[in-house]
């Protein structure tokens, strides 16, 4: 870890990170704010969900219905929008932290100083992780505060389940970010890296949706890590949270370690 580099990189990226964090938090608060009016119509909405094809509701993580705040927020926010916003973050930032600097050539300056490539890569990974923690923390805190402000009967709110939901999301993004970081540290071309990383991550996402829509291609879910993240099951306590998160964290750690090792041994076109 190189602290000067960490400081500098945070300075360069903090604005972008806050944009994601504020975007996610703002949307979260909006969702909480409209919940009371949705809750009133929960029954007709649930009835509507029942007549919709089961694959459809599963694909968008809405099978738990609108019965409680957690099921509502897991489907509407954690199952769709939050996943998309932070997945974009997980594609973009790791690419900017390594591949972009290599492509532009400014990596040369970092490696001109008495630091090692291993340290540079580790520091850049820490910058990404700091951003992810920032986004997760702000979203979680805003969610909890929002519930207490906008929902009259906040006693029915399960803080534990809500935090589990956020931990599971964090584990997923940690793994996705690791994959993107690995591609970033192997690439000389920023655009190409962005394409590959985006392709893989949104490919995973699409496979997840396809697998859920049709039971016939159910087997597809074994090929995407999004299967390990099931917000609608977490909120009703049906998910194997420890196991899923452990696998996701494991994938992430392996990806980051391999990235750092690969970056140390690689020829750089600087």
């Amino acid at each position, binding site marked *: 870890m190189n602290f000067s580099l960490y400081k500098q990189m945070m300075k360069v990226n903090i604005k972008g990170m806050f944009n994601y964090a504020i975007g996610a938090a703002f949307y979260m608060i909006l969702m909480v704010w409209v919940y009371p009016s949705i809750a009133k119509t929960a029954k007709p909405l649930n009835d509507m969900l029942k007549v919709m094809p089961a694959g459809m509701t599963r694909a968008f993580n809405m099978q738990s219905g609108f019965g409680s705040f957690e099921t509502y927020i897991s489907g509407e926010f954690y199952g769709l929008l939050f996943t998309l916003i932070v997945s974009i973050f997980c594609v973009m930032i790791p690419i900017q932290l390594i591949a972009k600097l290599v492509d532009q050539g400014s990596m*040369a300056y970092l490696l001109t100083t*008495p630091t090692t490539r291993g340290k540079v890569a580790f520091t850049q990974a820490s910058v990404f992780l700091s951003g992810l923690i920032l986004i997760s923390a702000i979203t979680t805190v805003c969610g909890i505060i929002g519930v207490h402000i906008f929902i009259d009967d906040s006693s029915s709110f399960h803080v534990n389940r809500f935090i589990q939901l956020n931990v599971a999301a964090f584990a997923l993004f940690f793994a996705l970010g690791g994959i993107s970081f690995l591609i970033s540290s192997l690439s000389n071309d920023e655009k190409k890296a962005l394409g590959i990383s985006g392709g893989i991550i949104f490919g995973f996402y699409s496979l997840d949706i396809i697998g859920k829509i049709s039971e016939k291609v159910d087997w597809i879910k074994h090929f995407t890590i999004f299967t390990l993240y099931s917000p609608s099951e977490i909120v009703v306590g049906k998910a194997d949270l420890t196991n899923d998160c452990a696998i996701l964290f494991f994938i992430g750690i392996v990806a980051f370690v391999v990235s750092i090792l690969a970056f140390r041994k690689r020829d750089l076109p600087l």
Partner: protein
Amino acid sequence: MLEVQNLTKKFKSGKGIFNITFSIKRGEVFGFLGPNGAGKSTTIRHIMGFMKPDTGYVKINELDTWKKQGEVKKYIGYLPGEIAFIEGMTGKSFLDFMTEMQGVKDLSKRNELIERLQFDVNTPIRKMSKGMKQKVGIVAAFMHDPEVIILDEPTSGLDPLMQKVFIEMVLEEKAKGKTFLMSSHSFPEIERTCDRAAIIKDGVVIAVKDIHELQSMQRKLFEVIFKNSSDANKFIHSNLQIESHEGNRVRVAIQGNYDQFIEETGKYPVQNIAIYTQSLEEVFMNYYDRSEASR
């Protein structure tokens, strides 16, 4: 001080560098010359430890630049051929960042360099001209007082006045015992600073020469305008190598044989003499042609 031994790196395209060997003594300024695509940058990338050699090694201060990447950088100052800075910084914030990364406490050298190169450090880098960026790069390469300074085309983008200042700076550092490796296209710059130079072509070092030897290889073109065109007619029948002749105007190529040239032109009244110095590129071309012809 800097030793390049049997350095080979072959790329998939079949190009690369092959068996590059040379060494630079402490306090020596070494020129690295060759046309574009000859392998200069690839060699410098190996010296900087950005690439892993297939065979051979580069050592600076007895440290392998690939294996001891971090440690060896304490002794190196580097100016890249194409400078790219981190986005969103001003000259000052970039230099502050580099100072911190290099672990330098004493800012006097840096301030002196900025003073000398005369530029405004507070300008955002994206608004800087090429020459100004080059100055920031030069400051970053010199400010931590490194023992070895590697410069990839250092004066590109600098105006003639600043080129002169730069050459003075190199000579001063040289006098303090600093070692330089400098790739360049500008012959005057190499002439005034370097002790020796390596010529590289197609990934192979074809000669490591003393700079005086290189100078004598340099062919110069003189254009002589005689008062009478009849004199010009007589002049072209001397032993000199005549490039062109038109009326009373003669172009003659001289390579070391200045005495003969003076003697021949002295026989006739002369109206004007103008000189065309060959570029370094042309000197190489001559050199290649000759070394290929002698094979």
